[in-house]
């Protein structure tokens, strides 16, 4: 009996102490930006849609069912880019870092879906999957305060020559500097990260073959893309196999 009471009090005290120290620790944190950002100095790349099986796209262009999931994922992903959702966003000056350090309420720059051209899903509801020209959206991870230098753009290559023709939207896979820097979830609530759509026009000879694509971010000295250990830092590799 006494021993139970003792442990009740003892653990109660420890729990209170734990809560108190955690509370003190949390008080020292800002709700806007994390204290340190040194573990993510350079952003990773990611694609949408993202197949469950290790970034490999398998589909039959004549079988709607086989790519239905990709299409719906893309549609869902682009919902937040819909014009109706971007009413509060402003048009920023392209090609320039949009510094808002002095402003209390950070504005988000508008990203027009039309920039994605054929991959915007407006003209082709199947994002090119039915035509054998599937679209993949490439995005750069959000990092608070990151200001890319130079002219960052996405460039993709295929190991197998001549199997696929790659088109970029916006042209040259440009990522506009006006979308940077990011100010964090609470200050920059409506922020939309810039996207680059990669359209893969697969050569009709190359159907049934697995095509390995690697996309990298180029043109910016402060965005790494050659890290030995982190295969997603400024680059991403995926495979596409299309049948008819």
């Amino acid at each position, binding site marked *: 009996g006494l021993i139970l009471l003792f442990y009740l009090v003892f653990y109660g005290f420890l729990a209170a102490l734990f809560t108190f120290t955690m509370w003190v620790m949390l008080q020292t*944190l800002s709700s*806007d930006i994390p204290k340190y950002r040194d573990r993510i100095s350079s952003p990773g790349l990611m694609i949408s849609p993202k197949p469950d099986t290790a970034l490999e796209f398998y589909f039959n262009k004549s079988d709607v069912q086989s790519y239905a999931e990709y299409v719906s994922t893309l549609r869902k992903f682009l919902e937040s880019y819909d014009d109706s959702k971007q009413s509060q966003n402003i048009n920023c000056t392209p090609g320039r870092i949009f510094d808002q350090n002095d402003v209390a309420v950070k504005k988000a720059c508008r990203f027009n879906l039309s920039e994605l051209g054929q991959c915007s899903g407006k003209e082709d509801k199947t994002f090119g999957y039915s035509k054998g020209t599937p679209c993949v959206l490439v995005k750069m991870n*959000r990092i608070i305060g990151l200001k890319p230098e130079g002219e960052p753009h996405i460039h993709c290559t295929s190991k197998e020559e001549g199997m696929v023709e790659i088109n970029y939207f916006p042209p040259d896979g440009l990522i506009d500097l006006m979308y940077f820097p990011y100010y964090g979830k609470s200050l920059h609530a409506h922020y939309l990260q810039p996207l680059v759509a990669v359209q893969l026009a697969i050569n009709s000879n190359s159907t049934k073959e697995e095509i390995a694509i690697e996309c990298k971010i180029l043109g910016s000295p402060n965005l790494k893309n050659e890290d030995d250990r982190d295969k997603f830092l400024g680059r991403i590799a995926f495979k596409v196999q299309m049948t008819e």
Partner: protein
Amino acid sequence: IQEDHKLSASELEEKYGTSTNKGLSSARAAEILARDGPNSLTPPKATPEIVKFLKQMVGGFSILLWIGAAFSWISFGIQFAQGAESPFDNLYLGVVLALVVILTGIFAYYQEAKSTNIMASFSKMIPQQALVIRDAEKKELPAEELVVGDIVEIKGGDRIPADIRLIFTQGCKVDNSSLTGESEPQSRSCDFTHENPLETKNIAFYSTTCVEGTATGIVINTGDRTVIGRIASLASGVGNEKTPIAIEIEHFVYLVAGVAISIGVLFFIISVSMRYKILDSIIFLIGIIVANVPEGLLATVTVSLSLTAKRMAKKNCLVKNLEAVETLGSTSVICSDKTGTLTQNRMTVAHLWFDNQIYSADTSEDQTTQPFDQTSSTWTALSKIVTLCNRAEFRPGQENLPIMKRIVVGDASETALLKFTEVILGDVMSIRARNKKVAEIPFNSTNKFQLSIHETDDPNDKRFLLVMKGAPERILERCSTIMINGKEEPLDSEKAEAFQTAYMELGGMGERVLGFCHLYLPENEFPDTYPFDTDSMNFPTSNLCFVGLLSMIDPPRSTVPDAVSKCRSAGIKVIMVTGDHPITAKAIAKSVGIISATSETVEDIAKRLNIPVEQVNRREATAAVVNGMELKDMSLQQLDEILCNHSEIVFARTSPQQKLIIVEGCQRQGAVVAVTGDGVNDSPALKKADIGIAMGIAGSDAAKNAADMVLLDDNFASIVTGVEEGRLIFDNLKKTIAYTLTKNIAELCPFLIYIIASIPLPIGTITILFIDLGTDIIPSVALAYEKAESDIMNRRPRNKRRDRLVNEQLAVYSYLQIGIMQSVGAFVTYFTVYAEQGFLPSTLLGVRVNWESNAINDFEDSYGQEWTKYQRMYLQWTGYTAFFVSITIQQVADLIIRKTRRNSIFQQGLFRNKVIWVGIFSQIAIASILTYGLGHVTALNFTPLRFQYWFVAVPFAILIWVYDEVRKLLIRRYPGSWWDKNMYY
């Protein structure tokens, strides 16, 4: 059964095909050697090295770690077959675990081998030579080459090279003490005197020594077939008991393994029912096992024990078996030899009686003067007799040695007398030279006296001086006068009565008493040229003048009484077991305190109350002197009764075989028994005892082999210092284990919370190994250097059944209190690291699956930033490092609180044990090297850590210290209270 002692010399010649004059031919001898093997004792069968090594590989926690390694490899195999991305982690983990087992195994094996080697050097003997007649020639041969039928010659000082049937002897005496424990030399002749080959005079036994005289004999047994060889093989039949510390460690291993397995299995079931994959559950299981097993602890215990063993070796206790270090500490009964162990093993003059008065002499080891009154002229006369009537001489060339250390040629009593007079009078040899000896009758057992006639050193006195010493009653018979204060007075009945009283008193003290008398031969009857003839005794040997008595004893070592009283206060019963006469044994027992001044034996009570012994209430007697003859007829119950009812026991006239019975009797009472011994026949008792102690100087090789410990100086007092060290190491091992177990919880909790709350893993398996085998090793060894908290020699020996090394309180306090506090401190650091990088605690709950997914490279944190898998892993390793550093910091506090179990740290002194600070420094240094030096080696999962994270756990470390001080304060303040019972380990 041997019949050789009954055969005549010619029958023996026939039986063994030899000749007493010519011996065997070399060819025949070679044949027999090939048939019988060399004449040496087969050493006890040693366990093959590889078996010893493998035993280390599977003992203790090794099995658990092997299981962990096997699981790692299995999961690697499964992952590899499934083609997962980084399956090599588990392969490496398995290899690391296997390496840990192998390395700690090698370490333990090396430690054991090292302590065995110390002993091996002991048993190496100089090859013995024997003088053999072969091919009708005398040859020196190595004793190993002797065969049955060889004719060997032995002389005084030789060790008997085999069992020999004597065919020619001249004044031959042998010392059979190594065989029978009888320390008196026994004469040997060619006559068949007893049916029993062990008792008959015409056989000399292997490994005994010839003290004086010469002899020739036929070898009748060699090697293992000798009497001693048969006893030695008997000793190896006595089972080796497990040492108390081995039992304790086993108990502890079971406890920890039990906790590890039950928590492991419990969480395996929990994780499976939480729909984790089986493979993941297995990996969790490995983590739990690794966190639970104190990998470095058994090595630490070995090191601590060997440190103590070294310390004990400096104090003349050489420990053969590391675990025996602690056994000595838990000893509750010491069965000690008398001669050499409790006593100095040399006769010394203890008392004198002259002028109707008893004087005591100094018997200490390093006497340089004698304090008693030497002014009486009776003493002058007595000292002259003692000096002159003595055949013992110092060996030349020892003038610079202290008198007591000089080697003397002569028997024990004469040696004692020589040294005694040398101390008082100085240069005895020149006194003898000045008083030239003209005739002498040496001591023999029929007339029981020794006589010599000298010229005097007074040039004016032409008389001869006849001096005589011998058995007091025989001397008195020959006297008609007695010297009192330098004057001869007639020996009337009153004076004879005084003599009797003194004689009884000295004899009652167990001392060997000698009487001394003299006579100045009248000058007219015995002129210068008088031809003294010792055969016809043409001089008076009666009507002499009695001068005085001297009594001798083998006195106790001066350190022994103190050591015995220490044993008494330490609750250790000291039992004397000796082959000596009960009176002598009792006298020594009284003088060293084995029988205390106030206690009485049954016989004493009977004498005091003047009633027959049978009527005495045996319970009233605290002391008992048991004769070996009585012991022989006793039933086990009677022996148990004696051992139970008497706290002070002396066994006298016991044979070494009876020692075994006494040891077994004590063990039946539940005692941990230490036994000292030196003879070959002691080896069964030494083996049977919980700790056998062999004498380093007087001990035979067989005894040293059978013993667990060798007493280098043969001194009982050394045993007591050994006991003290043994008790200290038990306490300190408790501290070491408590220290080590504590952080197991801080290593285990992360896994449990990881499984239940699905947070990113707070600490990795490899990191845990770095704590267990890295930062924690030196501090836990440092606790072995801790001084005792109180006088450990003032408490009773620990109860084997109740006072465990790892008791419930220790486990509970370490696991459920300090361990949990450490975990809380480490978790605060963990959450701080994650929160300051962007993952608030609330975000971390339940993220495990996504967090660990290789496919998710845009994992969002609390601030909307996105992380790749590798960035998350790097953060996770930073978490490991922070958790590791927090445990290390709190282990510093843990180390400091473990210095004491009851006293405040300030009572104990924070800086008295310098090694603790070496430990703390090493801990911090190793942690710094791992974090900053190896922080870039990915496989080790350490990352450079922000400096401030080292201090997050500091408040918790201080809390641990303060809490423990409060615990100790309450324990001291309220002994016996609920708190004391539950919190004192």
